[in-house]
């Protein structure tokens, strides 16, 4: 097992390499809502990427509001079709909106609209703007996040949001470790990172990896820090102001604890 030294996997979503002149990169969401977005192709792509990352909470929300799985998939596609076509995010900028709350507000308005139009389901049906796997969507919806299954649609959305975000970051990190040929290290330490290792001592991991226990502890420490940084970077992608990262993190904590 190679000792973990330099060349750490770089973490965090790959974003906005367009501004790779050493200047602090715009985050996707701030890019979308900022008036500086001269290049609409970049904006559309950023928006599309964000939607692909976060469709699951939207789907769960629509399901909880009472739609069947088929209707929910149609409505999710219909909603994102409308959302992606939209060019004007100026109101978000003035409200310092986070992507999470903006998306929730938008989907709730969208459903109210659909409710008014009644027949709009047919109109929304058939549009495919995102790749949504129906089976995993239902699995995501059905898997209980809590003993109570009476969470309000809003709460369900926010819980799903948090879990989707955390899962995405974990997957990114896994890929990065894989690229560095440190897949075994990641898989062995991942339960300690994720809080699922229970009481199993770190010595077991050390034995599996053939490393000294202290070296494993340092590796775990680094893994945790990288996860934390990647998480902050991913959250940064969904807010306008970097100063909001801490607030968003704390907010997601309160959501998860409810």
């Amino acid at each position, binding site marked *: 097992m190679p000792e*973990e*030294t*330099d060349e*750490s996997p*770089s*973490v965090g979503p790959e974003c906005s390499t367009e501004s790779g002149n*050493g*200047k*602090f*990169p715009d985050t996707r969401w701030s890019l979308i809502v900022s008036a500086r977005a001269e290049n609409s192709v970049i904006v559309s792509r950023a928006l599309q990427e964000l939607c692909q990352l976060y469709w699951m909470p939207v789907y769960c929300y629509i399901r909880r509001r009472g739609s069947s799985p088929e209707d929910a998939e149609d409505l999710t596609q219909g909603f994102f079709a409308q959302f992606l076509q939209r060019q004007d995010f100026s109101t978000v900028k003035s409200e*310092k909106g986070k992507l999470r709350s903006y998306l929730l507000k938008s989907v*709730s308005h969208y459903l*109210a609209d659909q409710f008014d139009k009644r027949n709009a389901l047919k109109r929304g049906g058939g549009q495919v703007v995102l790749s949504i796997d129906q089976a995993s969507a239902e699995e995501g919806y059905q*898997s*209980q*996040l809590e*003993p109570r299954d*009476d969470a*309000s*649609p*809003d*709460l369900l959305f926010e819980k799903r949001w*948090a*879990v989707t975000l*955390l*899962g995405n*970051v*974990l997957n990114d990190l896994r890929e990065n470790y894989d690229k560095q040929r440190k897949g075994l290290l990641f898989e062995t330490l991942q339960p300690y*990172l*994720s*809080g*699922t*290792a*229970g009481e199993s001592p770190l010595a077991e991991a050390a034995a599996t990896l053939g490393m000294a226990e*202290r070296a494993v*502890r*340092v590796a*775990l*420490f680094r893994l*945790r*820090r*990288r*996860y*934390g*940084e990647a*998480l902050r*970077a991913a*959250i*940064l992608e969904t807010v306008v*102001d*970097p*100063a*909001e*990262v*801490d*607030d968003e993190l*704390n907010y*997601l904590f309160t959501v*998860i*604890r409810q």
Partner: protein
Amino acid sequence: MCDGPLGIAAALGFCPGCLLRHGQDAAETIAGPARFDTLPVTADEMTLLFPELEVIRLLGRGGMGVVYLARQVALDRMVAVKVLPTESSDDPQFSERFRREAAVLARLKHPNIVTLYDFGERGEFLYFLMEFVDGVDLSQRMAAGSITTDEALSIVPQICDALEFSHRQGIVHRDIKPANILIDRSSGQVKIADFGLAKFTGPADPSSLETRLTMTNMALGTPRYMAPEQMDNAPTLDHRVDLYALGVVLYEMLTGEAPAGSFEPPSAKRAKLDERMDDVILKAMEPTPERRYGQASEIKTEFTAAMQARNLLTLSRRHRAFLLRVAPASLIAIALSVGAVLWINREKPVSGNAPRAAGAPSITREAGTVLAFPLFASQEAQVPEILRDEKVIQLATAESFGIALLADGTVRGWGANDYQQATVPDGLQNCVAIAVGNGAKAAHCLALTTDGKVIAWGDDSYRQASVPEDLRDVVQIAAGQFHSVALCADGSVRAWGYDVDGVSTVPPDLGKVKAVTAGEYFTACLSEDGQVIAWGAERAAACAPPSILLAETCTTIAAGASHLAAATSAGEVFIWGECRRQRLPISAERAYALFAGANVTAFVDPDGNLQVIDTNGNFETVGDQRALSMGVSGRTLFAVVGGSETSRR
């Protein structure tokens, strides 16, 4: 791992709480209890790494490393040892630069700066041996309660002295934040920690050695205190980044909150603060370095002057500041809970078909026009279009929507309509009272009709809008975030909807009550003998009335989202719950009507002035007309005023 439910972790393959915590650790803001396996170095290993030290205990940990308290045996002194894992210790260039730059820091000696005794590399770790300060840091101090004027006058000049001294030596701290400002327990002396270490450990400057340590190219960490040019990774940073951060710290010290987004001036958030302080803090926080102060000593001079110039009764730009006099007297009228402000008037029994069961209060139905007042220095407030020129009896408002009861007994809604909460059911008439859910996520409405029936609409996710079929003879209504409450003519209480934590489970031994109200996750009522009884989520601190109230007879209660207010027969208004001024009695000279919404409590004083206090303790007089009914939406207070025309049905 954590206290989260295990089922979730099993279903997902990870524990959300644990993963989220790594994000907080990465900001190096948490120095909480550490688990054995989360430490890169245990105390035992410290002893092996540092044979010259007697390691005593762990002082704290952050995303970057750990700090231990130790005794330096040879010199018999206490030291703090900060240990950071590095990934570049085998790089000779890194080591050389580290040694050169740390040596400069070790020469920085000042009474208000934590002295760096020694530094170096051991194995894969960098370490810093520092002076040990026995005390708390400023963020811990602020968490314990608001900073008094005297404290601020003691702490701030010392911070300025330290910065002035180091800046003269050409050393920039780069990571000034409350957690780095230590206050000695016994002497009160302020010492700034981690001077210049941000260069090696912090996220501030990716062009420095830091990138070698974290390999992340983003300005992560604690961006709240970072100057814009620091956030942008400007190639040349100077001492003015520290002055910007100091501005943020000052704002937080005085107002209890860090400024974010388009924040309000400090004087709008802290009573008795002179407006000159706004100028001092805003100048320190100027986005362009050239427009900031040039030196910390200037901030010291102007801060001290502004702080001492505080004036107890100053005129703010937009509003008259208000100070309540302590002079108990009796309440003239009583009134009610958010969303269900019924006017109960014993002097003027009203004819008509209001509920008239035995013991039920009669209900007057005065109408007036709606005015909107901006609260706490917000810019503007507008009356909803559909209420202009209307005679209104009662308002019930939430963050993004509201309903109004008009003089003709009909109801109108406006604002957000995602749950059809602003769409009043067709044919609704003969209403005497209305209520809307209390809480940021609330989206349901209630109306009480003249025949004692309750009509509900809007969000029904928890069946909060499904009124029990056998409910009748209702005289008062109230609504929490996801539950609804009714007081019946016989003094009994019914609640339905969300019932987690028993918020909708009425205590069996409740007895007769005379008023009900509801907050986000709690329900409260007033017993016949004037006692406040509340139940629901224990985390709602509003549930436990201050014990001092046991000796009082209350006449009115009103609930905000997470606080409760009660007025006593002696004329005192008590506010408690999730507010900084927990359980502090606020004495009023006879309050007319008590009202609470979101984080605001409002009442009308005997002169007819509409007074408002928020849960941070900020006072404001917003109007001089007697209000019949009130509602809060965001930073706007709506009030029904006038009342010259009485509509009686």
